């Protein structure tokens, strides 16, 4: 498993980045470290798309264990990545979702196209 959090791969400057990225086979795990608003969405989108293209990514997991806020910009990020992987049979999952974030997902109807799992491990087992 490649872990970009610990190694200086240019994806993260310690403690400052809005998300950390981890790749497990063809699954990209995005650990959100901050509130998923428009400001952070722009950066996450750029970095995630580079990783998706370079690593032949099929599935994406958004892990919310360190993020308890999301607005409609987050919906945009997740929808955008969904459109990227759906054509190759990929799936999107979200994990460790807090109740405010869960309300946004329910209200937006996003659970119709993404999976919700308690932990990253259960999501990986389901996707891979």
């Amino acid at each position: 498993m490649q872990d970009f959090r610990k190694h200086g791969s240019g994806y993260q400057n310690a403690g400052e980045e809005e998300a950390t990225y981890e790749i497990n086979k063809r699954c990209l795990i995005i650990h959100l470290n901050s509130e998923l608003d428009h400001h952070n969405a722009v950066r996450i989108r750029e970095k995630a798309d580079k990783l998706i293209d370079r690593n032949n990514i099929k599935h994406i997991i958004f892990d919310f264990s360190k993020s308890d806020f999301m607005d409609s910009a987050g919906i945009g990020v997740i929808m955008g990545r969904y459109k990227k992987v759906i054509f190759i049979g990929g799936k999107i999952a979200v994990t460790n979702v807090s109740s405010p974030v869960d309300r946004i997902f329910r209200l937006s109807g996003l659970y119709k196209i993404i999976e919700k799992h308690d932990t990253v491990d259960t999501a990986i087992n389901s996707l891979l």
Partner: protein
Amino acid sequence: MNDTNEMLLEFESKSQNESFARTVVAAFATQLDPTIEELADIKTAVSEAVTNSIIHGYVDRIGIIRMRCVICKDELTVEIQDQGVGIENIAKAMEPLYTTRPELERSGMGFSFMEAFMDQLEVESKLGEGTLVRMKKRVGKVDRLKESVTASQ
């Protein structure tokens, strides 16, 4: 007892101020003793309005966003105002999933969230002059529940 309070904040339309605006509103609303859920609702609604001003109001330039919050009894009013391009068709802009900036991956749910998470939403806009979003929400439902329980006893 004085049960009104008011604050005014002006900041530049930079995206890092989205979280700043949310935090300020949340801190101001704390005096109403909101539930965690109410606080999340208010933060989301403010985030949507401020982001709209940044992306749509001022498009590719930096302008000033004015945020005014008023507390009257148990009601919080939040106004987010910009002097940007304005909205041509407010009804259209408020339609769920409608967006003028799909290339930015805007989901078109901003106004829907403001409506869903606040009790009341008003939008005033004039082309070339800017937009004012006014949202109201009664806060501190737990206290009101306690009051009604006490009253019924």
